[in-house]
């Protein structure tokens, strides 16, 4: 399709980017050109529609958690930067713990976080869960480090059980191949057969492509 010719005058008029003389001249042109006038009115209606339906400010879902997670990440940065930074004091770090957002926020279950003690143990660094967010109010996430297991644990409580009659099956993935152009990853077994392909659907959720039957 041939693209429409650009009309900068039209959008400058629409956006109030013309001086008085330019505006008067363009509006005289509109008065004499019904097609251009209609185009201008349509674009004007469109602009008004966009402004009416795209709010300049929106309520942030789980706003308290939004703030608290930022603070946790700042604390993490501070711990990792250690002595390099002079912007914090030790008391500043603990100041976060007294903040109201360390209480559970709304329907979101929040797990915060044992990272300060973990990072300050001095021994070889362990994996850390810095923050967690569970969209379902029924689900709680808690985290801790188990030194006997030499593992960091993220425990999800309150999940619906998987029905006993459901066959939970595993995949034994030998190798994978990611096609970045279409953001899809295919998983293969040891024999080179494709187990599945995973990509995302238009809503951003994962989507599996099953292996097609072969003759």
């Amino acid at each position, binding site marked *: 399709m041939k693209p429409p010719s650009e009309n900068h005058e039209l959008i400058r008029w629409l956006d109030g980017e013309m001086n008085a003389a330019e505006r008067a001249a363009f509006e005289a042109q509109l008065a004499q050109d019904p097609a251009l006038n209609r185009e201008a009115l349509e674009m004007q209606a469109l602009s008004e529609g966009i402004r009416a339906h795209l709010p300049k400010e929106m309520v942030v879902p789980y706003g308290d958690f939004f703030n608290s997670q930022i603070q946790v990440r700042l604390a993490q940065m501070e711990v990792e*930067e250690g002595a390099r930074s002079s912007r914090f004091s030790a008391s500043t770090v603990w100041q976060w713990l007294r903040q109201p957002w360390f209480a559970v926020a709304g329907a979101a279950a929040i797990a915060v976080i044992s990272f300060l003690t973990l990072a300050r143990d001095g021994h070889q660094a362990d*994996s850390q869960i810095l*923050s967690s967010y569970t969209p379902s109010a029924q689900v709680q996430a808690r985290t801790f480090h188990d030194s*006997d297991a030499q*593992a960091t644990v993220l425990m*999800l409580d309150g999940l619906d059980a998987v029905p006993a009659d*459901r066959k939970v099956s595993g995949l034994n993935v030998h190798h994978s191949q990611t096609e970045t152009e279409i953001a899809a990853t295919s*998983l293969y077994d040891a024999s080179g057969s494709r187990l599945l392909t995973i990509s995302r659907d238009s809503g951003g*959720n994962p989507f599996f492509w099953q292996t097609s039957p072969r003759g």
Partner: protein
Amino acid sequence: MKWPHPVLFSLVICPWVIAQDAAPSGAGTLPVAKPATEGKVWGALIFATDDAAQLTGSQEKPPASLPKLNERLSKVFSFKHFEILGQHQQDIFREYESWVVPSRDLFLKIDSKGPADQGGVNLHLQVWREQQVLVKSEAVLRPGSPLFIGGPKWKNGRLIFVLSLEQK
């Protein structure tokens, strides 16, 4: 269940999937330049139970980088038996999302946030159960220090996800 964008499906993914099935081991597939990575992770779905009769008989073993896995799991989860239902070793891409899918039932999406101080990698993790995200976490994953994620109950036992960063 949501379906992919229909145009995306018809023009891009569907022909590509067909091509993948036709030539799964590489010949004839689209040319692939391997993206930059932050390292590899090993992810596994574990079934923990006290009832040996409920085990599926899976014979999968953990990697050598994760010794005594069952013993370590038993320190956290009070079950007698731990069975690897599925496992997946996956590159963590620097600029693209990575999926760790040892099972369709429970799997991870990982976005790298770059190397961590004191080794390891900063990650944004999402644990998915089919079409539902169970938890989103900011994490630092370091070699030799696995992450145990306690998942849903199943058959008087529990499903556990293990994620471990492989040594470079």
